[in-house]
């Protein structure tokens, strides 16, 4: 099996922190250090793609043809409210409960 690249490319920890913020993931300082190294190595490995000339190649988003699928605008049955709320961490029986958003 191919070996992981020995040179330790790292992604700067402040960059890792920025991505974590975008992804809404709280990371510990140990995790920041670990991901800084591991994601750096993985991105380094991705650089192999640079050697491929892709000019003029249409990106392939899906393996099947993608087209809009329309249906009649009719009301269909949906899950009962009780069922939808059943897995929620906090509800009042009618709504999902979240912390205050406006001051």
């Amino acid at each position, binding site marked *: *099996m*191919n*070996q*992981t*690249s020995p040179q330790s490319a790292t*992604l700067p920890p402040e960059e*890792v922190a920025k*991505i*974590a*913020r*975008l*992804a*809404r*993931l*709280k*990371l510990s300082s140990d*995790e920041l250090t*670990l*991901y800084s190294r*591991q*994601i750096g*190595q*993985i*991105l380094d*490995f*991705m650089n*192999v*793609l*640079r050697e*491929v000339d*892709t000019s003029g*190649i*249409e*990106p*392939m*988003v*899906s*393996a*099947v043809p*993608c087209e809009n*699928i329309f*249906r009649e605008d009719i009301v269909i049955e949906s*899950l009962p409210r009780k*069922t*939808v709320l*059943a*897995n*929620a*961490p*906090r509800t009042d029986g009618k709504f*999902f409960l*979240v*912390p*205050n*958003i406006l001051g």
Partner: protein
Amino acid sequence: MTLPASSTACAGNNGLDHWSIRELGQQLAKRELTSREIIESSLTAISSRDSRIGAFLHVDGDRALAAAQASDERRAAGQALGPLDGITISIKDAICEVGQPATCGSRMLKGYISPYSATAIERLLAAGAIPLGRANLDEFAMGSSSENSAYQLTHNPWDLDRTPGGSSSGSAASVAARMVPGSLGSDTGGSIRQPASLCGVVGLKPTYGRVSRYGLVAFASSLEQIGPFSLDVYGAAALLQAMAGHDPHDATSVNEPVDDYLSKLDEPLKDLRIGLPQEYFGEGLDSEVRRIVEQAIEVYRSQGATLVPIELPHSKYSVATYYIVAPSEASSNLARFDGIHYGYRSPEFTDLESLYANSRGEAFGPEVKRRIMLGTYALSAGYADKYYVKALQIRRLIRQDFDDAFQKCDLIAGPVTPTPAFKLGELVDDPLAMYLSDIYTIAANLAGIPAISVPAGWTASGLPVGLQLQSPVFTEAKLLRAARMLEITSPWIGRLPPTLS
């Protein structure tokens, strides 16, 4: 057809648990067996073996026994539903069934109960199949070893110190350990074929769009498919037959007619041209795996197949391409886990953003976080063209390689994995090395073509090795018949993992 001697010779008590879906179906049809006996046999096998294997996260025996009674009553009334009626399977714990847990192997979904069923499950239930329990997996189907499950390790029944593969770890192990004759898994980059190969069972990834993904908890929507595991090729064909077809609930499910996968299964394909990509037999391939795969290919040549050298020049880019595309889609799909609608909510937060971040940071495991981070990076401003768009362009070149190759051959044969099952713990600290274990399976997901892993042999130390066959889109009938050609010459069903004795 009578049962192979190997099956009955291995029979413990009643030995039912060693039988394949075809054998069980034949016995049911002859009224020499009841569905209730099948369920009872599986429950006995689970209670005696699963403490060592760790395949199941949840077993619902009472419900299965009730379903078995209904199946036996249908059959007694002459109303049996087909080859799966009364036969039990395990379900990867990422495929929803109403009223059942679906943890996805994650702390995030501990205690979650599905409010609806996947279309694949609905169709299997309509065919009389009986889900018996929920199979362990790498968290959110991200991993190749079971080590990313938040709940337990699954052990390879052929060697308990080794991985069964992943991410459909419990699916493969539950079949290999003869606790159930079949299973449902999902395959995003090899998550059916790799564990099937490492566990010595049949595993099929259908064409993208052939089986509805509705009710499969989404990881990488443009890559993944639900597919079957089975002890025998027939079982995989029967499970696919029941599940395949268009579903309005999945906009990517394709409205193509479904072939008959069963009636000609035993007829060998004539004038078969088998493509051998030089890229699949190069550096990094274990010598024993190579020998076993080459012997299997020789079986086809001896049955009249022509071997055609082919090239898949972009295959060396498939791992890097996949590990941009899949994490990008994952970072988007897993945004739904917000600590509000379902799943884990951190007890500590001060506002909405810290509720999101703390809940997600505490409940996702390391690999899931790694992939969300990688995907967020690849999609972020300034990097999307460099990584995501570039990967999608190379994805098209990978697909084009297959289209070109299939001008010269009907099927592509090669290894499923570069090595036999590795030891649990061996790669867990090196994510990139773990990713490279998917090197031969990933391209089929990127291209959307069907692919199967069929047992081909065992190493000297007794570890199973699969042969991978890949074919053009919507040619599963041919793929299954080709797999059957190997199976019929080397009936491996009688070979049992040492842990069963």
